[in-house]
């Protein structure tokens, strides 16, 4: 007797714990093997690009919080840097340092989430996440101290930042910076040599270097594939050229490398914080900028190395109070381009961890 088989379609999501938000993967399966996958998105589309065309440059800052809501401060930073480039605003020195300090804290917080949930996807249910959240909580407390918010900070302003830091902030941050390397070591000891982690993630979901570049992957996904490209170094913005840090690069481009690169980047962020804190100068935290900013006619593309990749803003000004065009280059959407090539031939469980290792945030994919 001949057994006839045919591929079938499995919808993973939009409501599913491993899709990290309202995201649908339309997977074609042959038994348990993935034959094809197509991301279906748009469930969280709020039309931010359209909304922003009707609001002033300053009013648009809170919208950027709602892109990648796990890294709102870096989103703020990317946007205000683009506007400042367009309107040629000079930022006070103290504000520059505060921006770097906040951005690097945000990177650590975002990577903690990424690493924790990656392990969650592997089946290490909630224990690693709990440890990661213990550290992230300290960062959220610090952010709350500065601007009163724990998720959508709306901290950056065109020309600086919204608040100066309170007295108790620096001692608490110093304590965090002193403790954090020890915690990363602890996690590393717990996880990096764990056999289950290694077996499940080494060699799985490989993104070759050439394809990573061709599909414009960025951030840890690109670096895990062996490309030494970090915008903080390649095209330094703000005052990143004053700090000494390494760019961790993977070699295999598999899920393990993406995990490893994020852990190493947390160490480098701590290094940047260690250098920035003693250099923090006194002075103003925001330049004098008109409330209704009218940048000259023109266009600008500003980009930064956000925790998840290259976040860019392409703004077109017609000398009115609102941007004529407000385009967001979303790193995680573009990182998903090559997902199909990474998972074909692997099993469903590997699809879940490969998707998890890209570290997506649906607020940013759908905008």
């Amino acid at each position, binding site marked *: 007797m001949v057994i006839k088989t045919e591929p079938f379609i499995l919808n993973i999501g939009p409501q599913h714990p491993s899709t990290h938000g309202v995201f649908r993967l339309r997977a074609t399966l042959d038994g348990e093997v993935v034959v094809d996958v197509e991301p279906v*998105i*748009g469930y969280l*589309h709020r*039309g931010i*690009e*359209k909304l922003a065309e009707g609001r002033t440059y300053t009013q648009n800052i809170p919208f950027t919080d709602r892109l990648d809501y796990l890294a709102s401060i870096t989103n703020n930073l990317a946007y205000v840097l683009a506007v400042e480039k367009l309107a040629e605003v000079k930022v006070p020195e103290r504000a520059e340092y505060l921006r770097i300090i906040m951005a690097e804290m945000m990177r650590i917080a975002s990577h903690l989430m990424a690493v924790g949930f990656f392990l969650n996807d592997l089946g290490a249910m909630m224990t690693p996440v709990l440890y990661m959240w213990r550290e992230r909580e300290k960062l959220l407390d610090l952010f709350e101290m500065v601007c009163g918010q724990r998720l959508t900070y709306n901290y950056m302003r065109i020309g600086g930042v919204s608040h100066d830091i309170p007295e108790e902030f620096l001692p608490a941050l110093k304590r965090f910076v002193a403790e954090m390397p020890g915690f990363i070591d602890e996690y590393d000891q717990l996880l990096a040599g764990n056999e289950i982690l290694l077996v499940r993630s080494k060699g799985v979901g490989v993104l070759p270097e050439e*394809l990573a*570049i*061709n*599909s*414009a992957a960025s951030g840890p996904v690109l670096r895990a594939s062996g*490309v030494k*490209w970090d915008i903080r170094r*390649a*095209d*330094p913005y703000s005052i990143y050229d004053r700090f000494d840090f390494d760019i961790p690069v993977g070699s295999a481009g598999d899920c393990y490398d993406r995990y490893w690169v994020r852990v190493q980047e947390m160490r480098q962020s701590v290094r940047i914080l260690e250098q920035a804190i003693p250099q923090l100068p006194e002075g103003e935290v925001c330049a004098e900028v008109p409330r209704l900013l009218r940048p000259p006619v023109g*266009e600008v*593309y500003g*980009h930064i190395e956000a925790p998840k990749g*290259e976040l*860019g803003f*392409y703004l*077109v000004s017609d000398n009115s109070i609102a941007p*004529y*065009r407000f*385009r967001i*280059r979303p790193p995680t*959407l*573009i990182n*998903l*381009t*090559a997902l199909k090539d990474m998972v074909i031939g692997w099993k469903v469980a590997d699809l879940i961890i490969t998707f998890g290792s890209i570290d997506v945030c649906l607020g940013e994919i*759908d*905008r």
Partner: protein
Amino acid sequence: MTIALNGEEVAEKIRGAFPGPVVAADKAAVIVTNQSLYQVAEFLKNTAGFDFDYLTDLTAVDYLDYFEVVYHLTSLKHNHSLVLKTRCYERGKPVVSSVVNLWRAADFQEREVYDLMGITFEGHPNLKRLLLWEGFVGHPLRRDYL
């Protein structure tokens, strides 16, 4: 520091390679004709010295008289960048050649421009709406939508 190439110099080299594609060029950008876009993109990607291997960003702007499709190209090898543009004056059915064959990065971004701006990318293997649902009427990012 990523060096932004001077558009005028790049335009000169494109003119040297084949005649007629450049409409205008200034320091910031090169604007090429709609028909020659794919040819120019291929030239910029594969010519030694340019090596634009990384399509950072692809988007479109509606200027009411015309649509402008904007390509931000980067070369990771030389660490330089260029802004390439093309214009569509046909508001009813604007068409641009797809560059997916050159840069896979264009896949979702062209679908997004098609979805929100209503520009068709000829040669795209799977051109359908990305963010809005099938059956949605109109293209919301056009300036005359609301």
